């Protein structure tokens, strides 16, 4: 079924390229050609790793520090009879791929808290995230076999204001004293406010974000930090979900391609510089 759909996507794209190429400037923006080629290459690689059986079976992911701690963190909360707090940060909305990665992670965490009968609290700044997270957690609880343990009011919209959200989550942390805190998503300046407050109540903290600047705060203040791309790979590692693992594989293939391209371009530009004629510059996209 999905292979059919994948073929459909490819044929649509092919059609699109053919049509745009055949017509004059307005339909296709020539400046975007490198992006289009790169996108097509990436799509082919993702489809290959997802649907090609041998590539799927050979793949085993390396360990990511911090992910082993997830189980331990939830177990600890259960033992101490304290809740687990999960919050996706103020910077993301549902259109952002990072948020989707965070939802994947949430789904895994929720499955565990359901099984251990541990309270999961999820405050967010975005009502759309609240709606999606409620679905995700409800399903995880149902799949774990405990639909009755799900409380929708624990997945709540607090306020859209950045520091209103920070003040609210700080309040929740210092009152509920969660044993474990997951800070996964797109964070802005509130990152350290939350992480230090979490530290002051003695919680184990697992953080991960695509906001490069906040990573430095999480590294300093949290027990485990997933750096950028690790957040995307994490849910694949945790759940063993084949499709996520396949796209992690695709990311690795693309990374190798990028590395090779960089090396070739740097050597090329150096030779250009040595031989004295200014660069051919094919690498400036």
């Amino acid at each position, binding site marked *: 079924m999905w292979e059919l759909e994948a073929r459909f996507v490819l044929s649509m794209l092919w059609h699109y390229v053919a049509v745009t190429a055949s017509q004059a400037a307005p339909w296709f923006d020539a400046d975007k050609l490198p992006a289009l080629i790169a996108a097509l290459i990436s799509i082919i690689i993702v489809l290959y790793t997802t649907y090609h059986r041998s590539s799927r079976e050979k793949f085993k992911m390396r360990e990511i520090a911090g992910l082993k701690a997830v189980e331990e963190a939830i177990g600890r909360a259960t033992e101490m009879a304290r809740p687990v707090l999960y919050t996706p940060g103020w910077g993301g909305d549902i259109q952002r791929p990072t948020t989707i990665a965070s939802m994947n992670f949430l789904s895994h965490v929720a499955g565990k808290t359901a099984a251990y009968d541990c309270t999961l609290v999820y405050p967010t700044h975005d009502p759309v995230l609240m709606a999606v997270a409620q679905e995700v957690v409800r399903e995880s609880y149902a799949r774990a076999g405990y639909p009755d343990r799900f409380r929708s009011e624990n997945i709540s919209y607090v306020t859209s*204001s*950045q*520091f209103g959200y920070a003040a609210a989550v700080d309040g929740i942390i210092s009152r509920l004293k969660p044993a474990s805190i997951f800070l996964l998503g797109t964070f802005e*300046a509130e990152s350290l406010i939350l992480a230090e407050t979490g530290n*002051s109540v003695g919680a184990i903290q697992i953080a991960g974000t695509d906001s490069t600047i906040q990573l430095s705060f999480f590294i300093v203040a949290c027990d485990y930090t997933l750096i950028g791309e690790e957040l995307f790979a994490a849910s694949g590692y945790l759940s063993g979900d084949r499709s996520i693992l396949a796209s992690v594989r695709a990311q690795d293939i693309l990374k190798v391609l990028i590395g090779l391209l960089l090396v070739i371009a740097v050597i090329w530009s150096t030779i250009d510089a040595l031989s004295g004629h200014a660069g051919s510059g094919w690498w400036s996209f």
Partner: protein
Amino acid sequence: MKNIETRHWTFLGLFVCIGLVMLIDVKLDIPVSAQTRKMYDFIDTLPAGSVLMVSFDHEASSLPEIRPIGLAILRHTFSKGHRLIGVALLAEGTVIGYRLMLKTAAEYGREYGKDYVYLGFKPQYIAAILSMGESIPRTFPRDYLGRPYEQFALLREVDNYDDITAVISITDGSLTTHWMEYGGARYGVRVLSGMTAAMVTTFDPYVASGQMHSLVAGLRGAAEYERLINREGGGERGMLAQTTAHLYVIGLVLLGNVIYFRSRRKRKPG
């Protein structure tokens, strides 16, 4: 319990240090960085009457750091006779931007509607940035006070980014990335920025890759800009407190390590 107490001492120390320093009023002399000068030169050498867009992409909470930067840049643009269109992509920047523009425009006797216009706030910034690339009047049918777009002489000349020399994003977060990634990559708009010091490392690669033209960062950047335009605006005043706070943090880092290595030596006999 012990953890809580140490934490409280570090808090109290900071409070006392800053409090004491602020009772004394001393100004520090600082050199102007190349970054700040690049921004200054860009605005300084534009032909008079160029249309610039200023976007207030910050929250009310970072006002203490943002305000001196905004003041310096707005003063400079108005003094050079450029025309400004103000927008806000975070709701809280709206009234701040409005007040800053009115204040600086009045200082230079600039006229609303002819020399500057304030369009106000649009939610969902990515959408707003992309949408202005299609059509600014469709994105902002009215100005901040609700008057129709066509009413203003300045706006009749402006349809989308093609009619604007550059966008200056005044920011305290990563919103400006969207100006570059959506506005810049999609519509080729030139992006400059005044930002909090915290954001500098985030935007370095963008400056290096040319996606961002130039930036002015933090109280220090504001102080530098104030020197370039020869006007005081609050940037220079906070510099001594800044320096003290820095030294305090350095002291804490060092102290933390001293304690750590001492306790390690005690544990390892011999």
